[in-house]
């Protein structure tokens, strides 16, 4: 057991937030979409598209950053003897929470990381999304105070714990076996966007390298955007919050240097101005993250260190992205999708029922 894990200290988590903020701005500079240097929800949605689980042509790319997050976390966990295969804490509930978390995030157009990056890029519509996120997490803490639990996970075999990292490795191989062909929408089994956000990306190796670095550092520091808000509300603790503030601050400074800062409500990249739905979408996402115990990034890092329940949440998010685009639930720059409002309402009811129903005394 290591007692001197610097990254898990106060300055450690602040450094990790700063590095993520900087690297996100760098990824945008190198080709990723506007205020989307890193977005876990958007990138998992792009992966769903690359695999043909939805056919929204503008958002199909097997984002190497996400694969790097899982593999980087896996390697760091192995290196520091923190790879602990575990599973069995209400997987079906976690799948549903993942799906609705994604649906809520795609109504807003971003995960909590991107909400912070949008703010750091001057997109003021993100303020409503962040307010919704805080509200959703707060509702989740009410359930936590009343005994909400998904139950205990059990230790499981190394094979089970390694499934997610090996899936990431398999998908990474796909990227090399079926590389992007200039101007073509398909390469072997993979779909590639020719235009739209899915066509905008840094080079594969740079994206992968940054993904690996962020994955390793985040696994070691336990960086979590939802946890930052939850711990503040629930315990008055500001440990994780330091990382989130550093992310916003360093992304903001790097955006200024790169000329990527553009203050205003309108004309923001991959964003819409339906303020109520920005708020409501992130309320749903925040509640789902809170009930599942982690933001989308944290769930990826946990899946890398052998947490099979976090892996189910991630698969739920990918499935949710497919539903979101197949059923017209996802927003676009023009506003929410035809069934976006209905999906947010349904998701809130489902999450409230889960929060209410999953209570146990003397777990």
């Amino acid at each position, binding site marked *: 057991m290591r007692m001197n894990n610097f990254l898990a200290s106060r300055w450690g988590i602040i450094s990790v937030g700063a590095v993520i903020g900087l690297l996100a701005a760098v990824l945008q500079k190198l080709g990723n979409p506007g205020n989307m240097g890193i977005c876990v929800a958007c990138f998992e949605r792009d992966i769903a598209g690359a695999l043909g689980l939805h056919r929204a042509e503008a958002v199909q790319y097997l984002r190497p950053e996400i694969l790097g997050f899982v593999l980087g976390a896996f390697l760091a966990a192995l290196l520091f003897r*923190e790879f*602990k295969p575990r599973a069995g804490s209400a997987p079906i509930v976690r799948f549903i929470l993942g799906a609705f978390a994604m649906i809520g995030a795609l109504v807003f157009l971003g995960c909590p990381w991107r909400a912070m990056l949008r703010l750091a890029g001057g997109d003021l519509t993100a303020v409503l999304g962040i307010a919704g996120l805080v509200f959703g997490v707060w509702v989740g803490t009410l359930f936590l105070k009343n005994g909400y*639990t998904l139950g205990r996970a059990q230790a499981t075999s190394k094979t089970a714990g390694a499934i997610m990292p090996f899936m990431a490795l398999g998908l990474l191989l796909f990227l090399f076996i079926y590389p992007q062909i200039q101007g073509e929408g398909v390469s072997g089994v993979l779909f590639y966007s020719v235009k739209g956000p899915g066509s905008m990306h840094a080079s594969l190796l740079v994206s992968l390298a940054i993904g690996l670095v962020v994955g390793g550092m985040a696994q070691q520091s*336990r960086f979590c955007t939802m946890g930052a808000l939850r711990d503040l509300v*629930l*315990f008055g*603790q500001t440990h994780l919050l330091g990382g989130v503030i550093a992310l916003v601050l360093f992304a903001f400074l790097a955006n200024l240097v790169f000329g990527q800062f553009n203050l205003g409500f309108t004309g923001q990249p991959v964003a819409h101005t339906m303020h109520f739905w920005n708020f409501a979408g992130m309320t749903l996402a925040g509640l789902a993250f809170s009930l599942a115990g982690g933001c989308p990034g944290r769930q990826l890092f946990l899946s890398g260190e052998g947490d099979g329940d976090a892996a189910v949440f991630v698969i739920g998010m990918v499935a949710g992205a497919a539903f979101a685009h197949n059923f017209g639930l996802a927003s676009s720059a023009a506003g929410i999708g035809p069934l976006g409002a209905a999906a947010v309402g349904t998701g809130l009811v489902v999450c409230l029922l889960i929060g209410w129903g999953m209570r146990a005394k003397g*777990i």
Partner: protein
Amino acid sequence: MNSTIDARGLSCPQPVILVMGKIKEQASGAIEILVDTDTARENVSRAAKSKGWKVDRTEQDGAGYRIVILKE
């Protein structure tokens, strides 16, 4: 008064909620906490310190850890 909390298998933030709850009931003495991940070990230790408790010792216990916190 001494007591034990078994937080093994529980995910964030439940180990901390259990410890905070016990600290509220028990003003002093020793509390033994069993956790199974490094994150839970760090979180529980940080929470106890924030409430003025001292982390007396942390030992390997099977695949997890046994943490003992104290307050005079």
